[in-house]
């Protein structure tokens, strides 16, 4: 069985602004990171949310709490 979590970063309101999905994840499979390599003294406004599929157990909790509808859990 292959589990995959698709995150639509255009719909996502931002991991520091909302972050509901990250807090309910029992295996802490979500990561957020700036899209480019960071340099000294730099601030990013947009961070990218991703889910490490090899950590995911497919419980679907993140899909339930996402108010923007940006997360889709695909099991199969």
């Amino acid at each position: 069985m292959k589990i995959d979590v698709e995150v639509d970063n255009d719909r996502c309101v931002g991991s520091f602004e909302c972050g509901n999905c990250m807090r309910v994840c029992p295996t802490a499979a979500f990561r957020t990171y700036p899209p480019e390599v960071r340099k000294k003294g730099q601030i990013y406004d947009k961070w990218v949310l991703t889910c490490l599929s090899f950590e995911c157990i497919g419980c679907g909790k993140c899909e339930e709490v996402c108010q923007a509808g940006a997360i889709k859990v695909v099991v199969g």
Partner: protein
Amino acid sequence: MCQWCVEHGGGKKWYLNTKNYITKELFDSKKEIQTAADIIFRDTERLMGIDMKKAFPHLNKPILGKIVGKKVRSTLEKREQGQVVPLEEAKAILNNANMAALMPCVCRQSQLGITEAKYCLCFTYLADYGKEWPDFARGGINYISIEEAKEAVERGAQQGYVIGVYGAPIPFVNGICMCEYPICMILRCRLDYGLDYVLRKAEFVVNHDIDKCTGCGKCVSKCQFGAIILSRTIGKALHNIKKCFGCGACTYVCEQNANSLVPREQVPAVKEEW
């Protein structure tokens, strides 16, 4: 005594040797400390985001895991390594440090999106250097006195977090972390992926006095390493010292004082376990 203490301790434990604390002169003269510091301040991305997706799924596979493991080792060894320390040792480390700052925890930022949780305790020159990384410190840096830092560590220990001292590269002490599984990336590297060089066990191990134990079970819930079980048959807690990391979390909650820490070298069974 672990290998690091023998090499860098000068007769003491490596994290208590005052030579290993980063001053401005040491920071400016050694290129490898600067590189390591830069990597730490941006490792929310490097270590925990994209890089991990490539390497970590393969670590538990039989043949491929060995090859990938070697590569991960060579990169991680230059970056961040640490050792679990009990509360008393953490206070002794802070006595050696000249300044301290509480920073927002890297792991809680990258995995929970929380910037208010300040559990990364940087000290010596690195506390000052953190200012130059505004994105790392988006929750703000609190510059505090050594006494306040000791209180912060004590509070963390009371809440049941594992205290670790980190050096990047070994043996240059750069900070104290208070974290929990599964949020802490370093605990996770050790416990989930078996990267045993990233986090070492403490110089201590638990000594459980079974006569004093009443079987209340408070220590069982505090242990992050699954080393304690509550036996239904005899009605007491049983400590597996092979799994014990010597963090001391079980000693703070025990009302009967049944748990204490003893130096690891005095216990032959776990003398060589790091």
